[in-house]
């Protein structure tokens, strides 16, 4: 486990500066199901990227490029939003 900061080391009021912050891999909270994609059905509408409440849908420019499981919580919103059924939730 990383060493915890002392009160003198913490920024005033706990401001978290994005570029400087450690990124805890909150995908560890995922509840057993993860999204899986069938790229043959994907029409690159990016609704999954738009609806993802975290930032777990990755893009390559403007093209769908998969999921970042370090941050995906398994909420299934992307699978619900997908208009072509390309995203399916599968057991870990």
């Amino acid at each position, binding site marked *: 486990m990383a060493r*915890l900061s002392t*009160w003198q080391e*913490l920024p005033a009021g706990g*401001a978290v*500066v994005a570029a400087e912050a450690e990124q805890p891999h909150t995908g560890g909270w995922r509840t057993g199901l993860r999204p899986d994609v069938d790229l043959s059905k994907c029409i690159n509408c990016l609704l999954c990227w738009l609806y993802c409440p975290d930032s777990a849908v990755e893009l390559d420019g403007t093209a769908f490029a998969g999921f970042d499981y370090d941050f995906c919580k398994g909420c299934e919103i992307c699978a619900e939003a997908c208009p072509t059924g390309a995203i399916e939730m599968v057991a870990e």
Partner: protein
Amino acid sequence: MSPELLTGGEAVAHAMRQVDPDVVPVYPITPQTPIIQGFAKFVAEGRAQAELVNVESEHSAMSAAIGSALAGARTMTATSSQGLALMAEVVYIAASMRAPVVMALGNRALSGPINIHCDHSDSMLIRDSGVVQLFAENAQEAYDLTVMAPRVAENPDVLLPVLVCLDGFTITHSAEPVELLADEDVGGFVGAYRIPHSVLDVARPATQGPFAMPDYYYEFRRQQSAALEAALPVIADVAADFERLSGRRYRALEPYRLDDAVRVVVALGSTTGTVKDVVDELRDEGRPVGALKIGSFRPFPAAALREAAADAEAVIVLDRADSPGGAPPLFAETAAALYGSGCDLQGHVYGLGGRDLHPEDVRAIFAGGQPVHVGVRGEPCPV
């Protein structure tokens, strides 16, 4: 400049006009209303540039104030009594998010029974919220402290809300000669607004007000207490600069005629003016008495108080707030500061809900033998 005849509320409105904050989210409440009414008039006349936000409650006033202060806008507001009670939840959050909001507090008794007049129960309600609380003796001090407050609030070692407390009606509504500084002098004194992490700095985005679990909450609370401790020397520095500008001297603890004083009264707010007058009368009669005015209740000048009261035989504390079932706040604070010093300590509660404390009452308090609750009708309980 020659003095103007102003109420304390008007004087604070002038200070706000001269500080020229960017945002003022505010909700009216007696006896604070003249402050914001006066400031709103300055905005309407184009004499102040602030975005005046007419929020729907004091809870919203402080919520909006946090947002604007952390977005990078100098922010001021004002409230009293029930307004502060409604705001209290967000006052704690403002302090913990280290939002340097300056707020005038027209001190007024908390309900119930409902009352609009002065006591300090509203200030004491948020005693432990982590905000700085400076107390004015009169309209001039309310004006001066409002000019000084942004410098204290925005100091990088402090970064906390600062409350300028002025007794409701006694100061907010009473007209006195007040010497205003030149607009440009106040502008130069307060300088530009800077905070370490501005929400609107898109080049360096930051999250404010994070969740803190048991592994970090305590560290943030410790950091807040360190910021309040740091505020004492900052108040002294800002007051020294202000003295160079105005010729008027402010201290977290102001001693009054303490030389050889045997009996010393400790008090807050406008009452200290009455106490000083009585000290003068008693000194004229050859009685060795003095006074200690608490200019800053938070941070509390404990070390200075202990040193100042070192030679007194008796220290008498006047609280304009009660703590049912326990020691009143100023008494508890003074007792902690003087613990082990050997001087005799007495405490009195007075003036709740705007009851006057007359010079003859203060003379009786100096003489001793008064009940704990002075000025209340009914036989005193045995002490």
